[in-house]
């Protein structure tokens, strides 16, 4: 069975500092990996995805993520955090060998950017 782990329930970072939100995964086939963000009282928004190709993926709002197959990780990063980045971030995993595109989501990491 496939699984996703977000080891940190909460990450605090000062505005202007780099941020990292961690994600590790386990899947038998080739992974599809995603990051979604959820702002308070709103639905989830797609940030970026890794399907194949370049291990460094760039997404919306200046976020990027690096796929690391040997460490089975897909950490989300941003060089300079903004207060408006404060939200709940979800890592998600799909299995390229599965028959459907359902995703397995992590439990989420709450990011707080401190002014």
């Amino acid at each position, binding site marked *: 069975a496939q699984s*996703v782990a977000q080891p940190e329930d909460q990450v605090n970072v000062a505005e202007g500092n780099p941020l990292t939100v961690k994600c590790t995964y386990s899947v038998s086939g080739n992974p*599809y990996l*995603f990051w*979604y963000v959820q702002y308070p*009282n*709103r*639905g*989830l*928004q*797609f940030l970026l*995805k890794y*399907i194949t190709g370049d291990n460094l993926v760039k997404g919306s709002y200046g976020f990027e993520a690096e796929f690391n197959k040997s460490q089975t990780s897909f950490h989300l990063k941003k060089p300079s955090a903004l207060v408006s980045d404060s939200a709940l971030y*979800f890592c*998600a995993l*799909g299995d390229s060998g599965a*028959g*459907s*595109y*359902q*995703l*397995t*989501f*992590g*439990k*989420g990491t709450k990011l707080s950017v401190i002014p």
Partner: protein
Amino acid sequence: GAGVSQSPSNKVTEKGKDVELRCDPISGHTALYWYRQSLGQGLEFLIYFQGNSAPDKSGLPSDRFSAERTGGSVSTLTIQRTQQEDSAVYLCASERQGGPGSYTFGSGTRLTVV
């Protein structure tokens, strides 16, 4: 429409009652998903529709849960004889055929069973 629309946005129901949750996906999106988000938990997959294919119901937690998608567009998730553990935010997402995974989510329906 421009986005995925879900209704109602909030629903409070008494234990044992049936509820229907509605999802109106983006026009032209052939795939539609239902997920459930419980407090402090990640999203739990419930059911997946793709075009005219048989739905993937593998995530439905019990036979009290069912869903249909009419005309390849609007979907209704029905929960019969609701229980308190059904309280959660129910999220609908759609995507173009051949995604994968670049969902557009609706804002969800917050279900509270009292």
